[in-house]
């Protein structure tokens, strides 16, 4: 019996020790590996502010990171901080009750002039903010200045017709007009959503709330244009897993992506504002007002961690300060929108100016707007088309997407 008692006591001790070890292990989980330097800086700054050791933990690609976080949340083992997405994705997490309401921190940041109330709305659910802004990006078209020059393109296009004409010129000059990877488990939605919103922004919004079908006229038109562009050889090999490779090595002349990518291009040796610049994607239909996708990535804070360790509040406040904004900017060329922070490069500054001048309709990115339960399944169907851009595959992708979409909304 005494043996049993000893074993039980040892077991209890081990459990307590392991539990304590986990309790002390404060981390920021992230799937944004290209921002490693900036995120490491954020963790360091948060550690200093809170007096706690906060480490960066990275998991990639995105679909594996999402799976990891799903199980962490389901297993009630939520990291103190983790990067996430806004829109529907954030709503899903908030519904679990694991996210801390950051209203007091946002109130202070707005009062201090770091952020605006409009920026708070980007990470709010039902009027309450549940995230610290990590990145606020406009989706623009990056272009290789040398390629444009060689193809005889004097200025970036302002209409769809000009864009297509420029694509032909670039093709004739030996370039692939557009970089279009399928990597990371999410990139296939880029051109799909752009072609839908370029023709019908309302239909784009409708796709994300179940009011517009994925096999309706708006989507059919997008697939037709997409397939036509593939048939003309406008896109790079979708099998390439390094999403920046073809743009950085000069094979592809343009890349439609969030302007946070400028840091990656800079890391790969391209000089922002010199080797590459940006322009806003024109609408496909000239009668449709121009839209721009705005992407906002929050860092979500665990309510349990914050309740158990109030010092983490200092870390949260530090993350909303100009210092962290500048760390992200200088280390990873990422801009979190802090008004006192400095935009990390001329590209991001120029994009903000472009958006301010053109006043396009701002749309939440498809990835964040669509229900997270079906986003991966829908992206898989878009990716299938990119690998085999035929009318048959387009029809199959649309039918598959609509079946998934209809099933989700019918059972919601």
């Amino acid at each position, binding site marked *: 019996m005494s043996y049993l008692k000893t074993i039980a006591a040892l077991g209890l001790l081990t459990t307590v020790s392991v539990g304590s070890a986990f309790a002390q292990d404060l981390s920021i989980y992230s799937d944004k590996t290209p921002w490693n330097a900036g995120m490491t800086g954020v963790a360091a700054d948060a550690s200093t502010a809170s007096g706690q050791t906060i480490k960066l933990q990275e998991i990639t690609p995105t679909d594996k990171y999402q*799976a990891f976080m799903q199980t962490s949340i389901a297993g009630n083992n939520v990291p103190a901080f983790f990067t996430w997405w806004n829109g529907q994705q954030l709503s*899903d997490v908030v519904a679990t009750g694991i996210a801390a309401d950051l209203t007091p921190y946002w109130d202070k940041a707005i009062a201090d002039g770091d952020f605006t109330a409009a920026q708070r709305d980007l990470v709010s659910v039902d009027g309450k903010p549940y995230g610290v802004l990590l990145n606020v990006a406009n989706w623009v078209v990056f272009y290789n200045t040398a390629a444009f020059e060689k193809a005889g393109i004097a200025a970036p296009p302002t209409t769809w017709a000009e864009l297509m004409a420029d694509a032909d010129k670039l093709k004739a000059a030996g370039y692939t007009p557009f970089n279009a990877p*399928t990597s990371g488990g999410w990139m296939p939605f880029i051109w799909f959503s752009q072609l839908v919103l370029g023709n019908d922004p309302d239909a784009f919004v409708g796709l994300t709330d179940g009011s517009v079908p994925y096999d309706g006229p708006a989507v059919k038109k997008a697939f037709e244009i997409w397939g036509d562009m593939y048939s003309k050889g406008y896109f790079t090999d979708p*099998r390439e*897993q390094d999403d920046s490779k073809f743009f950085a090595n000069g094979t592809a002349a343009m890349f439609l992506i969030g302007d946070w990518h400028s840091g990656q291009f800079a890391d790969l040796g391209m000089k922002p504002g010199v080797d590459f610049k940006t322009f806003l994607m024109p609408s496909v239909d000239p009668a449709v007002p121009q839209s721009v996708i705005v992407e906002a990535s929050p860092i979500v804070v665990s309510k349990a961690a914050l309740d158990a360790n109030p010092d983490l509040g200092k870390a949260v406040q530090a993350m909303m300060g100009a210092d962290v904004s500048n760390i992200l900017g200088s280390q990873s060329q990422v801009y979190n929108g802090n008004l006192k922070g400095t935009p990390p490069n001329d590209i991001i500054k120029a994009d903000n100016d472009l958006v301010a001048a053109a006043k396009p309709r701002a749309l939440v990115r498809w990835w964040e707007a669509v229900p997270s*339960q*079906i986003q991966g*399944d829908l992206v898989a169907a878009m990716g*299938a088309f990119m690998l085999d851009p035929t009318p048959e595959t387009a029809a199959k992708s649309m039918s598959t997407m609509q079946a998934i979409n209809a*099933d989700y909304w019918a059972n919601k």
Partner: protein
Amino acid sequence: MITTASASLSPEVLKDARRRERRVAWRQTRVAWLFIAPAVFMVSAFLLMPVVFNIILSFTKWQKFTGLDKFAGFANYARLFNVPYFSEALSNTAIWVVGAMVLPLAFGLGLALLLRNMPLQETFKSLFFLPKVLAPTAVGAIWYYVYAPHGVLNSAVAGLTGQPFDVGWLYSAQTVTPSVIFTFVWQTVGITMVLLLLGLAAIPRDPIEAARVDGASGWQIFRHIIWPLLLPTVLVVTILNVAAGFTTFDLLWVMAGDYPGKRTLSLAVYMYYESFSNGAWAYGSAVAVVLGAMVIAVTAALAVLQSRVEKNIR
């Protein structure tokens, strides 16, 4: 006059003896339970309980952290027929099962028969067995680069033909499953061959010699003597390979990680994506139940077949 021992004993003595017998039997049962208790605990806690829990989950509405307490009836099972990805995953799993059943057996049997009386048999056996000692993830990583667009296979074909050759083996619905099955066969054929060689070694020489003396051809000997006697081993190998075909995950995970349609490459992969990526825990559980039921049904059928074959041989 003959009297039995029990007849000469008083009822009290008999009662006492029976009590003692029961005590000994109970003591032995206790000892037996003590020894099997850890195994019973482990199997119950880590196998049966999760299976039962999984079946219960499949009847709930658990999705994205909510609905665990809501009964869904057979809704998750009905959903299997509404979502096109399930039928795709099911048909790919069927291809996997047939491929995993037929191909390693065919190649393994061929190799076993070839190596049976060959010099350097042990060396060849070790060579063919070697891939089996590698972790499937390592095998997947190696073959990923074989099949890559600019990988070994395409480069070799281009080198041989002198023409550019660019097939996306792991990026097309038509080629991805056969490519991964080929890798599975490459890894599995060695163990299949070794098991069949053991089966072949256990076949008595006498009927073969007798048939030979009677003028039977090689094919007749194989068809009427070797194959029936080898059948129990063949069925064991088939059961192992069929179960592997149903539950294959690691090779697909590593090799087809970049293929957008990866989630439908097998029911096991589909189950993973539905549960862990989409957060459809209850629906994923229903997929798991269907997969488990199929594995049990097929392996049970094969086991029944095996016992009949063994009975016939005896």
